[in-house]
């Protein structure tokens, strides 16, 4: 039984809201329980996946060797693999730079996003007043303000971290606000009936209730923060993976570029999948509900 991609929500209050909701979980198979039919299917799925990837690589290699495509633009997989060996060290160094900045931005984004989300979710007039601003800012391509940020903060890691934080804050803020607002009212009533004081309500009911959403937001936040750092590096030529990629492109070094792209893609996928695994461990009580 496939789990739904979108966490359901009939209201649509902004384009980015839907994007946030639509893509916070990859479609996996049935959760947990493996009956024989499902196991069989999983095997077939894996086979299809592996065969497809292998077929693609083989066809690509054949096409490249036959000379049907200009190797300047579309290098063969074998060339890409060799290039990876050549630039590996430099690319990893750049990746490290980027990841470091992204990590700092990420911590800031999570703190501000979760804190702000709890505040907005709890105080209704504030939330309603601020909502249009948040939606407007969320939907705006933030790259439009990047030049201005750079005017203020110059070059270097600071504008990258600031920009990436802004990028990452919004999905987390929006998700956490919604989760706090939507905490099951019955649970709050129950806690009040048992004499919970205000801080106990937050600590024992609201916070545990919003953990799944916080994790979903954190998953999105990783991609957004990384994206923010890369954009600044490409725009301003800062040290890091963004610069590595754009200078390889400018130098028409296609195999190296593909290799570097593959590297950063792999890193990103690994990070996100790890977060997913963490999410699963912490969400055992939810079972199939995602």
């Amino acid at each position: 039984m496939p789990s739904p991609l979108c966490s359901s929500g009939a209201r649509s209050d902004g384009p980015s809201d839907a994007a946030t909701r639509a893509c916070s979980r990859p479609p996996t198979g049935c959760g947990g329980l493996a009956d024989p039919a499902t196991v069989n299917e999983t095997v077939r799925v894996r086979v299809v996946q592996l065969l497809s990837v292998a077929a693609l690589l083989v066809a690509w290699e054949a096409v490249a060797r036959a000379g049907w495509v200009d190797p300047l633009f579309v290098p063969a997989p074998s060339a890409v693999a060799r290039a990876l060996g050549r630039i590996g060290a430099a690319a990893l160094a750049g990746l490290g730079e980027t990841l470091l900045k992204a990590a700092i931005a990420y911590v800031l984004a999570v703190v501000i996003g979760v804190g702000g989300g709890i505040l907005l979710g709890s105080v209704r007039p504030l939330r309603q007043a601020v909502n249009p601003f948040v939606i407007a800012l969320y939907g705006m391509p933030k790259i439009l303000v990047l030049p201005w940020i750079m005017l203020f903060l110059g070059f270097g890691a600071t504008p990258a971290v600031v920009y990436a934080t802004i990028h990452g804050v919004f999905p987390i803020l929006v998700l956490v606000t919604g989760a706090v607002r939507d905490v099951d009212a019955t649970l709050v009533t129950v806690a009040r009936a048992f004499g919970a004081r205000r801080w106990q309500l937050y600590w024992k009911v609201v916070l545990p209730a919003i953990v799944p959403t916080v994790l979903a937001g954190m998953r999105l936040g990783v991609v957004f923060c990384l994206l923010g750092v890369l954009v600044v590096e490409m725009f301003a030529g800062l040290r890091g993976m963004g610069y590595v990629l754009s200078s390889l492109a400018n130098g028409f070094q296609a195999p190296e570029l593909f290799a570097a792209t593959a590297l950063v893609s792999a890193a990103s996928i690994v990070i996100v999948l790890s977060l997913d695994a963490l999410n699963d461990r912490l969400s055992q009580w939810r079972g199939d509900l995602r």
Partner: protein
Amino acid sequence: MNKQIVLIRAVILIVTLGSWEIVGRTANPALYVPPSAAIPALGRLLTLHSYPDLLEHLLLTLREILVAYAMAIAAGLGAGFALGVNRLVGRAYGPILAALYAVPAVVWYPSLMLFFGLDAASKIAFGFLLGFFPITLAVLAGIRQVNPQLLVVARAFGADGVTAFRKVTLPAMLFTLVGGLRTGLALAVIGVIVGEVLGSKSGMGSLINHAYGLFRTPDYIALVVVTLILIVGSDAVAALLERRAQRWTE
């Protein structure tokens, strides 16, 4: 509307614009351009004084967005239905798609620039790439959330596969689909603009880059405002169509 809410919003706007104005007048004029200086710049822009070929660039950006979006719709619907209708295909390629979505899209851009150059084609390609994912995912999600009981009912009334799809599945998933189309538009727009800012010779993004490079800060702000209007306008149109679709499905 609640008085408290209006008050809070007014306070936010006043504090933001006010401090911006104050800082703008007292500090480095190249950087801290106050709103009062931005407005005449906007006027110069709209009367085509600061950038005479503004309209050309605006139209180019619009064209890029439309083409990217049209392609994203076509590919997104195609891929979405292909993955959604066949269970094995969906389960095999769905996770691959989602894994790709976990990669920040901008990493593909240098490759696109290498392949397509600095012209409109790379911006269209990037906008397409960004817009394609949410549409595909929305199609998948939409198909999955169709109540299977509805299909059972249709079959019981003698509908065959195609008819059931047309008369049950499509209407039932329309709402989710339209939401995805709206998101796809927003992301296609972002893709095109980011592409232009990061490297292009024409289009609104390139003008913004140009103004920034020459420290023409008031003009830069005016360009941003015009671009924002473009974006908000396109989203407003999309929202209108989405509400139309909502009325049909309820």
